């Protein structure tokens, strides 16, 4: 019997390719592989164009803001200054909110937090381009949707603190918000699950002859989940009125996008194989995100089917408060991202228009920071995660609620047992 390793001498030994990022800790940051077309250079197909007309756009990058902050080319959404300033404020708010909540986690007030530093435009600009009634199926890094839709920050913080004011009764990890009225679907820790659900929601809307559409977000890493592929299949097959966003921030915890197949092709190019419209967009360019989202929304609303949009960006911070990005990539890599900072770019654009200046920017930054601080103070009146278990006891009986619409006998019994346990503990 030949051994397992024995091979025929005239054939080369097979070997495996395991993708590796260009740089690891200790190396120089290397973004040389990134091809950046000039802003305004990518054509804008008509909203009613065949999906195939968009496919060349899956391999380039839709950009509106150039290096000087000037809006240029066919994708320029030509937004008025007020809208631009609102987007800027929302992005600044997200950043200030993230900073405060990150610090709250470090102070032990909650268990976990996830920042969206550098990716604020992805959610904020999309929210501005969608109708308030459209349903969003986000991942954990789209807090900008809630902020842009005017959701009370105190509510968000109550959820982060799992305190008495938490409308989710302390059941979800911090940042896994949910609000039906604001069109923000409950977040799942099982990645990718919301993708087919968004398609199903959109199909429901179409079955009922409604006019609302759905939008979903998924990370580059989770596109490897089966749910991604079934979602895009269903969306394409039934021409569901849905926008499918892939937020390519290039890192799935410590695994770079190459591990999810990003080395082989773009994530936008997944659209090609499914025959749906696809766009690859500079995710750090709020105007490009807005324009692409609006294009896809108009298409969906006209029964022309789904669009897959790759939002090309970079995760500046760690995945969550639980990891240290400097352990797996060069220190400060995010700050050197060649497509820049989305807030700085939008600010420069507004300044260039003569609609903004440093003084106003500083004042606005201070204002949103004060708003965040005030909200935090307000939320902490209802307890923080640690304090909730000591000083602000939630009613433990609620643990058994909402498992079913009506509580079955076995849960009633377990609920009674738990109450008895706590009574015994008090004695």
């Amino acid at each position, binding site marked *: 019997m030949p051994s397992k390793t024995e091979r025929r001498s005239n054939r080369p030994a097979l070997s495996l390719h395991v993708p590796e990022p260009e740089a690891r800790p200790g190396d120089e940051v290397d973004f040389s592989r990134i091809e950046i077309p000039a802003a305004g250079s990518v054509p804008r197909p008509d909203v009613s164009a065949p999906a195939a007309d968009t496919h060349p756009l899956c391999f380039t990058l839709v950009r509106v803001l150039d290096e000087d902050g000037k809006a240029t080319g066919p994708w320029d959404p030509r937004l008025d200054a007020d809208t631009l300033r609102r987007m800027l404020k929302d992005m600044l708010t997200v950043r200030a909110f993230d900073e405060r909540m990150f610090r709250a986690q470090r102070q032990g007030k909650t268990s976990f937090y996830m920042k969206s530093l550098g990716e604020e435009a992805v959610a904020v600009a999309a929210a501005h381009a969608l109708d308030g009634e459209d349903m969003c199926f986000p991942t954990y890094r789209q807090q900008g949707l809630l902020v842009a839709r005017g959701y009370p920050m105190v509510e968000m913080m109550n959820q982060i603190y799992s305190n008495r004011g938490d409308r989710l009764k302390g059941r979800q990890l911090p940042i896994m918000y949910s609000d*039906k009225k604001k069109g923000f*679907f*409950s977040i799942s820790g099982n990645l990718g699950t919301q993708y*087919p*659900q968004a398609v*199903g929601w959109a199909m429901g809307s179409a079955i009922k002859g409604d006019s609302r559409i759905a939008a979903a977000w998924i990370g580059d890493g989770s596109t490897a989940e089966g749910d991604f592929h*079934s979602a895009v299949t269903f969306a394409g097959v039934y021409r569901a009125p849905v926008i499918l966003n892939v937020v390519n921030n290039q890192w799935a915890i410590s695994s770079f996008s190459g591990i999810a197949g990003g080395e082989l092709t773009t994530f936008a190019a997944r659209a090609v194989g499914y025959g749906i419209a696809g766009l690859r967009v500079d995710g750090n360019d709020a105007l490009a995100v807005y324009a692409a989202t609006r294009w896809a929304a108009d298409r969906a609303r006209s029964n022309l089917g789904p669009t897959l949009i790759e939002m090309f960006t970079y995760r500046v911070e760690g995945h969550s408060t639980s990891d240290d990005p400097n352990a797996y990539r060069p220190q400060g890599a995010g700050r050197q991202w060649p497509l820049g900072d989305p807030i700085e770019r939008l600010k420069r654009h507004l300044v260039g228009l003569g609609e903004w200046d440093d003084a106003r920017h500083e004042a606005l930054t201070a204002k949103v920071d004060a708003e965040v601080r005030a909200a935090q103070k307000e939320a902490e009146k209802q307890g923080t995660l640690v304090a909730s278990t000591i000083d602000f006891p939630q009613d433990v009986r609620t643990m058994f609620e909402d498992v*079913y619409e009506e509580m079955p006998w076995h849960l009633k019994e377990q609920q009674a047992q738990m109450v008895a346990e706590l009574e015994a503990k008090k004695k």
Partner: protein
Amino acid sequence: MNMIQAINSAHHVMMERDDSTVALGEDVGFFGGVFRATEGLQKTYGRSRVFDTPISEGGIMGVAIGMATYGLRPIAEIQFADYIYPGFDQIVSEAARIRYRTAGEWCVPLTIRSPYGGGIFGGQTHSQSPEALFAHIAGITTVIPSNPHDAKGLLISAIESNDPVVFFEPKRIYNGPFDGFFDRPVTPWAKHEASEVPEGHYTVPIGKAAVVREGEQLTILAYGTMVHVALAAAEAAGIDAEVIDLRTIVPVDIEAIEQSVKKTGRCVVVHEATRTAGFGAELAALVQERCFYHLEAPVQRATGWDTPYPHSLEWAYFPGPIRLGTAFKQALED
């Protein structure tokens, strides 16, 4: 009316009453399903309410959940229970928990229908009974009818429920009850008294068991196909057994179980699924916890073996009257 016709009738009743009711799954549209449970629905209610799906159970479950959160009442067919696993994550991590994790803001009124169980020479990928996996999941209701009347009434209850319901259809008894003997022909439901199925809307409540045979000597807890095997086995063994058709395994009708076991003092639990950590283990534990001082003997289990479901040896895998008879004997001898 056989069980397939009863299930078809439940669809018609509900789709007629509520235009939020939609049906989807592999082959359910034009063809009416491989077992014909959805026959004629597409013609009556149109392609946007009854449609074929890609072969993607994860996709079927995911989009059905999305439809349910939109406000529809989807009835999603998984062609065979053996294929439910690719959709398992969506069922147990999503459908089961969306009400809970949103503190009741969203609910998932989804019915997942799936033919299950063996007895039709389906081999190891068309014969499994995965009900215990779902019984283990908080937030899922698991229903298994044993006759056409209950199938229709329970399915209507499932569709009307605002919670996700896994509805397993014992395909061995789609056409008539099976007595557990592979060499005997099935008696069609039409010739069976229990097959009387009203045409219109009626419900059989979820969570309520039925005493299908009264007796004093022994309690047999069964559901689905095994109800019929239990009846035949009790008859063959010549014992005065009480047979309880659980109809729903979560929430299980604990009152009916307790009442019967306290009366008879002996209990045999039967199911077709593999034994280890099967739903029979839960039933045995419940009986032991609640009826211990009324028990005259250890609770016995008659189940499928802990192997994959074999094709040609199916008759030896299936818990038939002989295996049940052995369990009766052990429960009665002590």
